[in-house]
């Protein structure tokens, strides 16, 4: 839904990721942008240029934090040092919600720095939801979890990915960052209908939507965030907002990053679909 308890009852429009190649343009030209998403880990430092730039951005723009290493799905306990640094950043940015991925990526204190896929089991859902709750209690900010793209499925899975996502967010009572590009990528890699996914997630829990481009290889698709959004992903986006209402939307473009105007222009295409589907 447009504004709900999972996104702090905000009504953000279309944003883009804050990336280093665009810093100077943003700080000098001060373009009109609904909001920026930052990668939390890039700013969980003690000082220096990253925080200096962030503070300047915060003076002008709304910022939402997106994490890549909380690893709610890892069996090990949450990293206390990570949480403390994250909380300090939450206080700095006043992010109305905080997102990270529904994945795992660390074992016994060693980090992969990847978003590894979950086995879709009830055991995994219960353990993951428990960690999400623990993180939310500590951070005191709504947490939303993002579906990842994946390239592998496990023998032990007991349900579909969207059923697993639903199981986790309902057990944790948290929101969803629905990445429609990831749905598309995974649907091609695993042979399911992406509309089934979009149609069956609990729409009232969708706090934010991600759109992005990807790379096609001979036998699989990789989520590379280095291309414009393709039409089938826009179609999924259109269906998603038809079901959720106009929802805070963010374009991810992380590699071979073009000019600020090109990235922002690509993101703003989302408004056409919002206007068409929900008349906003």
């Amino acid at each position, binding site marked *: 839904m447009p504004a709900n308890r999972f996104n702090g009852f905000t009504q953000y429009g279309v944003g883009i*990721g804050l*990336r*280093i*190649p665009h810093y100077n343009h943003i700080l000098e030209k001060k373009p009109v942008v609904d909001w920026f998403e930052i*990668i939390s*880990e*890039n700013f*969980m*430092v*003690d*000082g*220096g*240029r*990253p*925080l*200096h730039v962030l503070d300047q951005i915060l003076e002008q723009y709304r910022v939402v934090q997106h994490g*890549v*290493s*909380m690893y709610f799905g*890892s*069996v090990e306990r949450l*990293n206390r*040092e*990570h949480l403390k640094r994250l909380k300090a950043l939450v206080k700095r940015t006043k992010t109305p919600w905080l997102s990270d991925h529904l994945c*795992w990526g660390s*074992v*016994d*204190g*060693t*980090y*992969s*720095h*990847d*978003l*590894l896929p979950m*086995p879709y*089991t009830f*055991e*995994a859902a219960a*353990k993951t939801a428990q960690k999400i709750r623990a993180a939310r209690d500590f951070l005191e900010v709504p947490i939303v979890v993002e579906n*990842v*793209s994946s*390239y*592998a*499925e*496990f*023998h*032990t899975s007991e349900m579909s990915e969207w059923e697993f996502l639903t199981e986790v967010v309902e057990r944790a009572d948290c929101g969803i960052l629905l990445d429609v590009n990831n749905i598309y990528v995974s649907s091609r*890699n*695993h042979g399911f209908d992406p509309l089934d996914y979009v149609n069956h997630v609990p729409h009232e829990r969708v706090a934010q939507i991600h759109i992005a481009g990807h*790379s096609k290889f001979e*036998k*699989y698709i*990789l*989520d*590379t*965030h*280095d291309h414009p959004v393709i039409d089938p992903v826009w179609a999924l986006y259109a269906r998603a907002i038809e079901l959720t209402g106009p929802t805070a939307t963010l374009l991810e473009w*992380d*590699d071979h990053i073009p000019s600020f105007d090109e990235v922002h222009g690509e993101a703003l295409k989302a408004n056409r679909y919002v206007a068409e589907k929900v008349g906003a």
Partner: protein
Amino acid sequence: MDLDHIQHRMFDAVRQPLTATERMRQRTRDGRSLRGIAEEIIKPNDRLTSFERLEIYNRQYWFRILSALSEDFPGLRAIIGERPFEKLAIAYLLDCPSQSFTLRNLGSRLPLWLLSHREYIAKSERLALDMVRLEWAQIEAFDEAANPRLSQEDLAGLGPDPRFHLQPYVRLLELSYPADDFLIAVQRTKEEEIDIVSNAVTERTTRSRAKRPPLPKPEKIFLAVHRADYSVYFKRLDHEAFAILCALRDGKSLSEAVDSVDWSNRSVEESSAEVQQWFAYWSAQGWFCKNA
């Protein structure tokens, strides 16, 4: 198979080093079949075997961390060469995998690790050891905390023999080579700064084709790696100034720090004037702070 077992099995497989052609190897380093591990936990599909699906993650793991380490240590890479650096990086990352939520800390243990793995830097050992310390100091100086500076009033109010605290972002290095000049020359060829955001890595970072600057000749230097206006700088120091700063950093009082230096080649007046000049510069740079 429970979640814990799956994650241990898969993570162990993902961390196995790649073959020379950057593919997943057939067996783990201790001889277990990776095909067997893959088939045990991962389903095949109509295009990819279990092994091939696991391989995607194995390759991405190595591509990501090797690229990150390579970007953090361009000077070391330039000194020993691309291929030797890659061998070094793989060995280091097998011994010291990331134990931090951020890739920023990936190289934190490299300076110490290299001291006991000198075979990877045998041709330029001293210079390489200097460079790895300098490059890690540069990373720390970039984003370490900046505590409130000592103001003129604070300085005036200090007792007769104060203890000064250095800013956390100031790093002091004694080097056997002018590694600072070499690193600056290497960085001039460096491409754009990047940040870590993407989930997927499709290929290794393209290797630099820039011509390597000439390797420096041995020359003892004393260096402060510090930050000003959010940029990192290298400041060469006199031996005596370096010794005073090290003593202050280590908690010595001002008189203890000054007395720790051998002034035998200077008059009292000369040394006194120099110490005053140094302190004026360090204070102006904001290197002294209220709380270490």
